[in-house]
């Protein structure tokens, strides 16, 4: 399982594992997330979003697939590296990347640095905002909002260090595993898998 990041030591190795072909593109995650975290009503302000990707197969037949995206909580996070104040930081204990709004000066360097377009500027907070892997929820025994509501049960969340976790099992059973923009050296923690049940 060479794809699992081993560069840094974390007590918990939190990850999102998305079973790609179970996503139906309903965008329930988008709404659940925006509602739970009061993400302002602006297009372009979101913490997670599903993209519809249109293409063609080898017979020139049209295809579409759905690509749910969110912060990858990278182990080598460019947003953290460029932050001038330390507002963007990565938690040692579980690898979650956060922005501390009280320290954010709104320079938006992190938004430019992020290869996943996972951040937006929140005018109400006067700070950059992003996915927290629902840290407030998971700290209180709940699943992330997007996982809780996912109609196709495409999204799975948990600790890869726990061999019995759903996410660890999915990665073991996966027939294919992909991560986005790995060539940028970010070591992302969001996995896209296919599984034979």
């Amino acid at each position, binding site marked *: 399982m060479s794809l699992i990041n081993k560069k840094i030591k974390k007590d918990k190795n939190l990850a999102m594992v998305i079973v790609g072909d179970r996503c139906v593109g309903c965008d329930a995650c988008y709404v659940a997330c925006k*509602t*739970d975290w009061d993400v302002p009503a602006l297009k372009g302000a979101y913490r997670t979003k599903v993209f519809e990707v249109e293409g063609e197969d080898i017979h020139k037949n*049209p295809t579409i697939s759905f690509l749910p995206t969110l912060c990858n909580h990278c182990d080598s996070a460019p947003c953290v590296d460029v932050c001038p104040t*330390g507002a963007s930081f990565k938690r040692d204990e579980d690898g979650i990347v956060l922005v501390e709004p009280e320290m954010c000066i709104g320079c938006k360097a992190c938004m430019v640095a992020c290869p996943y377009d996972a951040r937006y500027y929140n005018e109400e907070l006067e700070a950059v905002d992003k996915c927290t892997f629902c840290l*407030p929820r998971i*700290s209180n025994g709940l699943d992330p909002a997007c996982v809780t509501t996912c*109609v196709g049960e495409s999204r799975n969340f948990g600790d890869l260090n726990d061999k019995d976790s759903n996410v660890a099992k999915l990665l073991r059973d996966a027939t294919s595993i992909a991560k986005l923009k790995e060539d940028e050296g970010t070591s992302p923690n969001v996995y896209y898998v296919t599984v034979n049940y």
Partner: protein
Amino acid sequence: MSRHNISRRGFLKLATASSVAITAGITGLPSPLRASSKKEVKKGARFLKYDRGVKTTNFCEMCFWNCGVNVYTRNGVIHKLEGNKLNPNNRGHLCAKGNAGIQSTYDADRVQSPLIRTGNRGEGKFKKVSWEEAYKYVHKKLNPLIDEYGPETLATFMHGTGEPYPHMLTLALGSPNITIPAYSQCLGSREMAWALTFGTGVSGHETYDMANSKHMMIFGRNFAGSVQVRETEDFAEGLARGAKLTYIDPRQSESAVRATDWLQINPGTDMALALGFIHVIIRDNLANMDFVRKYCYGYNELTEHMKKYSPQWASKKTGIDAKTIERIAWEFAKDAPNVVAIPARRHTRYGNDTQTVRAIAILNALMGSWGVPGGIFIRNKVPLNFPKEELPDAPDARRADGAGKGEKYPLAPITLGRTNGIYKATLTKKPYPIKAWLLYGTNPLSHSSIGVNGIYKALDNLDLIIAIDTQFSDTVMYADVIFPESTYLERYDAPFVQKDKTPFITLRKPAIKPIYDTKGCFDICKGIAKEFELDDWFEKSPKEQVEELSQVLSEEQMKTLEKDGVLLFEDVNPYPCASGVTPDFATSTGKVQLYVKDLEEMYKKQGDEFSPMPIFKDPVMPAKDEFRMLFGRTPHHSHARSQNNWILLELQDDTPVWMNPKDAKKMGYKDGDMVYLVNAKTGHKSDHSERLKVTNRIKEGAVFIHHGFGHTTKAWTRGYEKGTKENWFVSDGVDPISGAAAFHNGFVKVVRA
């Protein structure tokens, strides 16, 4: 932040001045991001707190599916909606629409008090009145109409959980004209065909056992795109477990992309394809003869009837290769009986809808997929004896909609009625003048069978339009008097009792007090009834009906229901045919009717359209420079009701016109060009231009847009004029058997903007 994009928090800030009720909530409005004060920053500490708040149980009203919802409030403000894991309708999940329910409640565009029109109809000028004034207004206006034309001059349209109350009010006033658009604008033909074949409808909560299916053959039912949660789950689950999916649709929908075989069929020829499959199944001895012998009526007649429908014939009609038709028929039969053939839900398409679904029902019968895992499961009733509700006597007056015995559509159920019949009666004043409409949660200007033009003309014939709604829809804007309904998050409703695979009871309790001067539908209808001294019919409020459950439930059951919001009755068998139990078929022969004896007489008198076994007729075709107008669901909106919900509007606020690349090339168009649609019959041109989406995902000769947009109500500050209203461009056809509408024979020209 502009008024057009307003968050819940922003709404609450704006609302402080005017609303005492929620002020308490605002001062204490907690947010994990606001929680810490400026004094000392412990980096990230704020992200560890989460106040889930107080839970109340409810069920969703964003669409008709009614998923179980847990509503979480903090200091009297709704913070979050989450699916109830125990509710079989959604098993803990909510779709985008369900998650966005809060935004529909905290919306300053809602109807905020009773209103009486002061300006011209549709002008949007109303005065705020007291409830008493509004009730009295109805009495003052309706009474003379009843005196002059009889009570049947009132016609009622209903959609929503409060339906029993306008129903009761209309009956008590003495009018038989009660209609639910779900029949004639949506699934009427499908239910008719299923009932003629199996003796029961598919039902609103459809009985397809997709999670366990080995092969789903789906005729344009977009499970992934229309998102009724359990079905979308089951569809995804069935596919994940390896089911084959044959998906039949001129458009590649969100569901079609998952198909083993997507058959991009010629529009209007689904019946021909089903007949081709049946032909192969009979010809090659692939039918489940055990099931056919035990339970079916008319196999010999069917064998004879199907001879002419060879795969080669079907190929010519459908555009699907004959070899493919044979292969799929064989594959389907190989996995029988754990297979299911599924018709569209809104089967108001080509005017041959009942017979098309008949052919699909016959496919299921020949596979023996009834009452087995992976096929069609059997619904069970909640095994309790509820006290019988007393209703006023059925009015003597004849119905105006042509539904029921002795009328043009004798099979159409009078419990649901034909909205299209009422529209037409209002327009033509035949069989008698309809002078008053009562609209409960319905909006004919956005979706009807006589087109938008027709509805505008029908409205002119009305002396009184009464609306009960949470919001100003296009039609509510034309009302003379408007009663604001509390949203589902603010009101009680009667216990929700669902006959299902696993039957259950669920409850709706208000999570907050009404934000504005609104009431539940029960109180509104009772208030109107009181003016006519008919309020005795409104004996028990929804809250009292909930409390009354303790008479039929044990203490323990009551406790479970209170705690969980759901009470399941699990000791049931949804698969009788798989476990040796003889199923009941409530048809006239007591069997599954491959041949429908009930239609014989009409067939003799009225011809092929009424044949006891489906006879295919070519669909009407657009002229050379015209396109067939197709429309369907988007996963991001509910009917024409949610296009002012800011968060859903973010997900979709336009209706690009889908066109095949070959058509685009002929017309000289390219992707992204701006175009207008023009109704080929009426000449009506769309209000504004739309972006052309050139894609192989739509069949040549047809264009497609999503349903529910193009609102003309200026009260919708965000949804106003977003997208195009497809109802300007649909046909006004009628299915001769069910009497339901046929929309897809409408043709348009596509002109450059």
